[in-house]
């Protein structure tokens, strides 16, 4: 036997391969019907995408529960603006309370 197969030996090998393939050839009829997956199992890429979608859905809903809704945030911001005062307002208050030396009723000095 020659361990380096020549062309006729290739042909013989391929004939054997053909016979082996014939044994696992699926029936013709089912392949011409518009039915989904041959093996009847759900493809794993589909399972992966569905589980990823569920995971992100859960994460997003959880985040929404932790974070106050936008409207509430706006109200809090406006409330902060209404009580806000600049440091110069404080200064003006102090200045106004200092006596200026003007008499309240000049006619009293006589």
């Amino acid at each position, binding site marked *: *036997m*020659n*361990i*380096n*197969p020549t*062309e006729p*030996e*290739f*042909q*013989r*090998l*391929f004939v*054997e*391969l*053909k*016979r*082996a*393939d*014939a*044994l*696992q*050839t*699926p029936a*013709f009829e*089912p*392949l*011409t019907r*518009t039915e989904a*997956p*041959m*093996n009847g199992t759900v*493809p*794993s*890429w589909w399972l*992966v*995408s569905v589980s990823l979608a569920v995971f992100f859905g859960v994460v997003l809903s959880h985040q929404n529960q932790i974070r106050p809704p936008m409207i509430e945030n706006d109200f809090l911001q406006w409330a902060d603006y209404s009580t806000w005062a600049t440091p110069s307002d404080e200064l003006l208050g102090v200045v106004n309370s200092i006596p200026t030396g003007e008499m309240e009723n000049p006619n009293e000095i006589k």
Partner: protein
Amino acid sequence: MKVTELRKQLEELHELSFGWALTCCRQDAAEAADVLQTAYLKILNGRAAFNGRASFKTWLFAVIRNTAIDEHRRHWLRLLRLGEYLRERMSPSEPSSSNGGEEQEESIRVLRVALVELPRRQQEVLHLVFYQGLTIQEAASVIGIRVGSARTHYERGKRRLRKKLSESKYFHEHQPNGTRVPTALC
């Protein structure tokens, strides 16, 4: 061509088509069956129409090949099944049962592994010539390449396959010392 006539021709070539689909799907039987189903539906629904420029067999094989390439691209997410993918790459699927002996099965398994390891074009040309009995010109027409390129792939493929088979442990263990010779090479 009428649908009934198409069905008849497809059925006649069904076994050979499956063998070709296996080659296009790197010997993955489940994927080959899916590809074949998609190709048949394309043809029967009129999405792929036979124009009579080549022989029906050549045209059908070109449709199967293109479908296999499309399916492979579309289902890239299958790579997520990395473990399964690698396992399948390491040992291509084998027939569930065989009428032949263990040695015959082993020689076929070795041939499958050697074929899968060849570059795709070389694998395709060798399959079309040795398995399907097409000429190099017809093989070139199925693959959509020039005859010169097909001839180069054919010669290189033969050389590589020969090398791979002679390197394989199985073919070394069965050297001509008289006792165990694989039936496929007798």
